[in-house]
């Protein structure tokens, strides 16, 4: 019999024949309707249908046959006997229609209790062998399975399961065979078609799982071995992967738990190309689900559960060992996900057992070594990244489950920390990776530690409101060892940038690295996110340790521990070479914290237990010791980055000095100051930085209180002023010197209880102040540039007025006469400045402009110490203390230096206006004097 040429026609034929069949049935013309059915079924012989189309046709035919079946059942045995019909339909000449008819009639017969059920079933399944074409055979057997679904004998489970398994086995064979049909170049198509058909095969296993229900004995003894044997024997990639997956999915997890050995053993015998890890992962998922369900059923069952008696991990471990032994061909790409899935399992089942993890990582380590670390490809590098930084989605689930009240699951942060501190192998694996990868992983880890910290602190606030009792979620560093491990993990980051450039070229992978190294060569202070992160890490470590203290209330014992930890950190970060300039400031800051803490304890003991000499001396020694460490750190920075960060070193020295001074440790303070001076003298060569450094030094010095003894202070300030007067540029000299004048005029620091007028022990020497001012005036006067000179004079005038206000004339030696003389001098100079310009009208105009617009800006921009800040509103330009023009960007507050004013129209106009800055500044000062007259009578004698 022929079949239609296209699927559309086929469907048309089927519909037509169905209609005819139904009509004949309604007229009880069974023979004719069977004839029509047979013709209709011929369409299923069509070899040109793709699996999808075939399925469409099949579905329609299935419906038609259901009609037929209904009729057959209703009219048995009045109009016909199904046993006769069963024979009758076997006269159909073609095997496919014949079998469909047989199954239809046979299953109809099965609905009657008097039918020889088993014989019919056996016969049908046996005869189905006649269809050996894969697609047609699969559908036929699927039809058999669909039809017999409800009709299998209920009393004989083993028969039913044998029946379904038999069907399954045959279907699987057909399915596998499909792969090998047709030309070789259509292999891909075949594979795709097979994937479309896989559900047909899988449905048999689903059926099996439905009928066996919870009959474990049967599952273990009959079903599973048979199925697995089939799976192994078919040696087909698609089939093995799919079927094992299905087996894992459809049968209950309890079964899997009990037959774990068998299942795992099976994977050893599979086609070498099968990705075992997928199967194992599915299995692990199922087992984890099991745990989850157990917990949901009974949250307290964790300890008492029977399933924990089983050594699930042990089983997996044995399996991995065997696998490693038997399948040395497995690549890392396959091996790593496999181990990863076992890790997932281990985490779910034994969340606190890090030994397991260590074992696993050791295995990875061994494996990696076997392959040779040089041979790690890009892909496996990615796998390592996922493995080592725990990006696996399954693990993510674990970490999110912290939100649940269940303390069973550890948070990711805790987990990683525990892992780092307990699994040596993890570190070793990490060490085997390429530098780029190591960096990525460590980055990832640090991110996790930090991120969850932030999250958690939010959580904790929230939580502590709800449960004031406890937040066990805090990550606590228990001892030095953990810190050590953590640091050793971070090592690649610490030393990451110090590698020689050749290294960079060879490790062709990491763009970041190249990028950063380029910056390195330029030795610029571009923000380095990695190093910044490390600095963050330092703070984080120290914070967690201090948190531990507050918790246990044993601060005096832990100061030493913290110190040790900090030293540990220091010793590991010193490996970073040039990177210390990023990280050491953080360490030094932490030293400062410790110093302060130590000081507090010291003070406390002094107050409460002054008799305990040993303790006191211990702490004072400790203090000194810590300062030494700091000094060491600063030296390290200085030594490791030649000249590139002398500025930083200077400032750190000065800060240390200030700190020491505040703690009344004058000698230490002096040492730091002298260090700073040494650096200034030996290493600071840039004149701009020199001025800045001097100003900074003067600031620090001016606030010191402990150095008055032993003339430390005196020598330091003299030295400072001397340096100031020896600066290269005259305006710098001038400014430095008049700023240094403050060093002889101590002012109140309210924090330590000083108050102007009450405290009388201020270090003040008006004579020297005047000397400084006079000296700077001389310098200002000697400057050739009139404009500059005027500007500086105005600044000096401002300084004079300051002293005039704050001290008696007798003390400061800044007399009215002196001020008036200065004003006169400025006026004269300004006149000559005006003479340079022809159009006086412009001057006045612009002066007026400046006058009007100036006020608001002065308030906004003028700084107390830095003196001459000038603004020009239209262009928002200010003159810096070193004489450069600074263009202010009012929007975001940042400023850019204008190195040279471009000769554009607007540029020249700007330049022109800037010329009158001194005039404006003088005007401003004069205004100030005039306004002061109202509150201070002394100003009335100053002539403006």
């Amino acid at each position, binding site marked *: 019999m022929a079949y239609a040429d296209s699927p559309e026609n086929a469907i048309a034929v089927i519909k037509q024949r169905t209609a005819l069949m139904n009509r004949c049935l309604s007229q009880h013309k069974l023979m004719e309707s069977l004839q029509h059915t047979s013709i209709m079924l011929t369409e299923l*012989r069509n070899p040109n249908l793709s699996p999808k189309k075939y399925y469409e046709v099949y579905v329609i035919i299935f419906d038609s046959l259901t009609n037929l079946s209904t009729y057959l059942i209703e009219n048995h045995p009045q109009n016909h006997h199904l*046993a006769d019909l*069963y*024979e*009758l339909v*076997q*006269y159909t*000449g*073609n*095997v*496919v229609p*014949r079998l469909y008819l047989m199954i239809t009639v046979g299953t109809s017969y099965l609905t009657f209790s008097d039918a*020889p059920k088993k*014989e*019919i079933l056996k*016969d049908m399944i*046996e*005869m189905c*062998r*006649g*269809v*050996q*074409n*894969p697609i*047609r*055979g699969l559908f036929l057997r699927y039809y058999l399975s669909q039809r017999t679904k409800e009709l299998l004998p209920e009393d004989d489970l083993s028969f039913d399961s044998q029946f379904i398994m038999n069907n399954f086995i045959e279907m699987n*064979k057909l399915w596998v*065979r499909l792969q090998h*049909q047709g030309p070789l170049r259509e292999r891909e198509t075949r594979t795709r078609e097979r994937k479309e058909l896989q559900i047909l095969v899988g449905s048999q296993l689903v059926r099996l799982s439905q009928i066996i229900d919870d009959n474990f004995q049967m599952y273990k003894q009959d079903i599973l071995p048979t199925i697995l044997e089939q799976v192994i024997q078919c040696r087909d990639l698609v089939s093995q992967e799919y079927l094992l997956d299905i087996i894992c999915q459809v049968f209950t997890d309890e079964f899997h738990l009990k037959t774990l050995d068998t299942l795992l053993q099976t994977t050893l015998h599979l086609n070498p190309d099968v990705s075992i890890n997928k199967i194992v992962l599915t299995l692990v998922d199922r087992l984890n689900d099991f745990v989850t369900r157990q917990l949901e059923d009974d949250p307290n069952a964790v300890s008492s559960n029977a399933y924990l008696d089983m050594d699930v991990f042990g089983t997996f471990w044995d399996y991995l060992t065997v696998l490693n032994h038997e399948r040395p061909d497995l690549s890392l790409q396959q091996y790593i996900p496999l181990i990863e899935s076992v890790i997932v399992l281990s985490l779910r089942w034994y969340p606190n057992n890090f030994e397991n993890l260590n074992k696993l990582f050791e295995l990875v380590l061994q494996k990696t070594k076997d392959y040779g670390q040089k041979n790690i490809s890009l892909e496996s590098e990615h796998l390592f990244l996922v493995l080592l930084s725990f990006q696996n989605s399954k693990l993510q689930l674990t970490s999110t489950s912290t939100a649940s009240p269940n303390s069973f699951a550890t948070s990711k942060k805790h987990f990683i920390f525990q892992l780092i501190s307990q699994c040596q192998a993890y570190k070793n694996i990490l060490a085997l990776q390429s530098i780029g990868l190591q960096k990525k992983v460590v980055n990832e880890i640090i991110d996790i530690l930090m991120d969850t910290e932030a999250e958690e602190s939010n959580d904790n606030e929230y939580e502590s409101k709800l449960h004031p009792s406890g937040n066990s979620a805090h990550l606590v560093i228990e001892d030095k060892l953990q810190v050590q491990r953590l640091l050793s993990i971070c090592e690649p980051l610490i030393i990451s940038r110090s590698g020689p450039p050749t290294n960079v070229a060879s490790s062709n992978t990491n763009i970041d690295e190249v990028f950063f190294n380029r910056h390195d060569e330029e030795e610029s202070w571009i923000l380095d996110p990695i190093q910044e992160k490390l600095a963050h890490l330092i703070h984080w470590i120290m914070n967690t340790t201090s948190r531990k203290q507050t918790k246990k209330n044993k601060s005096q014992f832990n100061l030493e521990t913290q110190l040790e930890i900090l030293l540990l950190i220091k010793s590991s970060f010193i490996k970073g070479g040039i990177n210390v300039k990023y990280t050491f400031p953080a360490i030094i800051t932490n030293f400062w914290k410790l110093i302060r803490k130590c000081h507090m304890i010291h003070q406390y003991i002094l107050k409460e237990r002054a008799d305990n000499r040993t303790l006191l001396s211990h702490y004072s020694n400790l203090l000194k010791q810590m300062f030494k460490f700091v000094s060491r750190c600063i030296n390290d920075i200085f030594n490791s980055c030649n000249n590139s960060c002398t500025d930083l070193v200077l400032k750190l020295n000065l800060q240390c000095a200030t700190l020491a001074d505040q703690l009344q440790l004058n000698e230490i303070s002096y040492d730091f100051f002298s260090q700073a001076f040494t650096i200034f003298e030996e290493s600071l060569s840039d004149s701009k930085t020199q001025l800045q450094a001097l100003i900074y030094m003067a600031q620090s010095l001016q606030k010191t209180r402990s150095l008055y003894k032993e003339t430390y202070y005196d020598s330091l300030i003299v030295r400072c002023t001397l340096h100031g007067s020896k600066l290269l540029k005259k305006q710098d000299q001038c400014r430095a010197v008049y700023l240094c004048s403050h060093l002889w005029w101590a002012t109140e620091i309210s924090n330590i209880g000083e108050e102007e007028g009450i405290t009388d022990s201020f270090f003040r020497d008006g004579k020297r102040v005047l000397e400084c001012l006079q000296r700077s005036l001389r310098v200002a006067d000697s400057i050739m540039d009139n404009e500059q000179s005027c500007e500086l004079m105005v600044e000096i005038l401002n300084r004079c007025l300051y002293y005039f206000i704050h001290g008696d004339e007798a003390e400061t030696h800044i007399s009215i006469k002196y001020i008036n003389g200065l004003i006169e001098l400025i006026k004269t100079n300004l006149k000559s400045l005006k003479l340079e310009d022809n159009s006086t009208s412009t001057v006045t105009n612009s002066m007026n402009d400046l006058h009007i617009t100036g006020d608001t800006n002065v308030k906004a921009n003028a700084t107390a110490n830095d003196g001459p800040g000038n603004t020009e509103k239209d262009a928002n330009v200010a003159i810096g203390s070193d004489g450069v023009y600074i263009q202010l960007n009012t929007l975001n507050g940042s400023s850019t230096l204008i190195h040279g004013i471009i000769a554009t129209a607007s540029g020249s106009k700007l330049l022109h206006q800037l010329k009158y800055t001194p005039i404006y500044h003088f005007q401003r000062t004069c205004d100030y004097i005039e306004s002061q007259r109202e509150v201070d009578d002394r100003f009335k004698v100053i002539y403006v």
Partner: protein
Amino acid sequence: MSIFFKPPIDIEILFDNEESRKHVDIAPRSSNSSYKSMKESLPVYEDGESLGGIVTMRVRDGKKVDHLGIKVSIIGSIDMIKSHGSSNSTSKKATSITSSSSSNGSVDIRKNSVDQFLCQSYDLCPAGELQHSQSFPFLFRDLSKRYESYKGRNVDVAYFVKVTVMRKSTDISKIKRFWVYLYNSVAAAPNTPSTHESQSNSEGVTADNDAADTANDDKPKNGAQGGAANGTQVLPVSHSSSDSKPVRLDIGIENCLHIEFEYAKSQYSLKEVIVGRIYFLLTRLRIKHMELSLITRESSGLQTSNVMTDSTAIRYEIMDGSSVKGETIPIRLFLSGYDLTPNMSCNYFNVKNYLSLVIIDEDGRRYFKQSEITLYRTR
């Protein structure tokens, strides 16, 4: 001739209980256009059965008819298409005239009788005058029938009753055909008929045949039971294996195909089921499908000029698609639904049945293997 002269007597032959007898429909096997495809229904008799009936003579228009005697005869003959000169045609001519009056298409005029293996006759009434319609009962007691009725392409085995009114002028005769089934169940080995053949045309043949029947007595019963069981039971019970040895064959094409097939037995009753299996040892062929067909081979004529004709009685697909090594394909073919011819043999012709396994590959090539089976009729 009959057109010009209507025979003065109508002869009607009626068998006893003819209506209630089992009938068989005979389709004309030759595709001769003049006979259309009319089916003829004939009563069935078996070997040793008496055949009786009534002959009714009706005189036309009340005329008296003189006759030299009325004779009834029963004849069994083998008719063959004459492909080569066979001399005894004179007697045939007479029958051909009479047969035309029977107006039935059952007898192929192209076929000529080559052997009358059965011819019994006796007078119904002596010479005299038929004045009015008259009936004569007749009876052939315990008639032995050597061959089964057969209607083949080249050969027929025909049985009929012939009533002849002998006259001075042309005899008036009438024949009535009937069909014969021989339920001898176990067909004798192919050689045995030929041994009978040597003694053919002798009276002793029938006795001989009877003896053969009795000798194989237990076997036909067994076979009949098996057949009956198969008829009613849905599933064939394969206990009837004692009947004959299974047919096992191991065939193949070197490095291409190697199969082993097996039929449960080599002898089947017509009601039985052929059960078997095919085991694939090697397949490199891309098989499209596989069929089992039953071929009836009729060979006729004398040894020197044998004419063989094959006709496929059953064509039955047993496998769809290509099998692989290790697969077993079941065979089950119900025979009862088909009109089959049991094996027959005599010195003029024989009928043999073959099971042919045909493999058709995707390029349309056919590979087949035939193996002879014996079919026999059971009750």
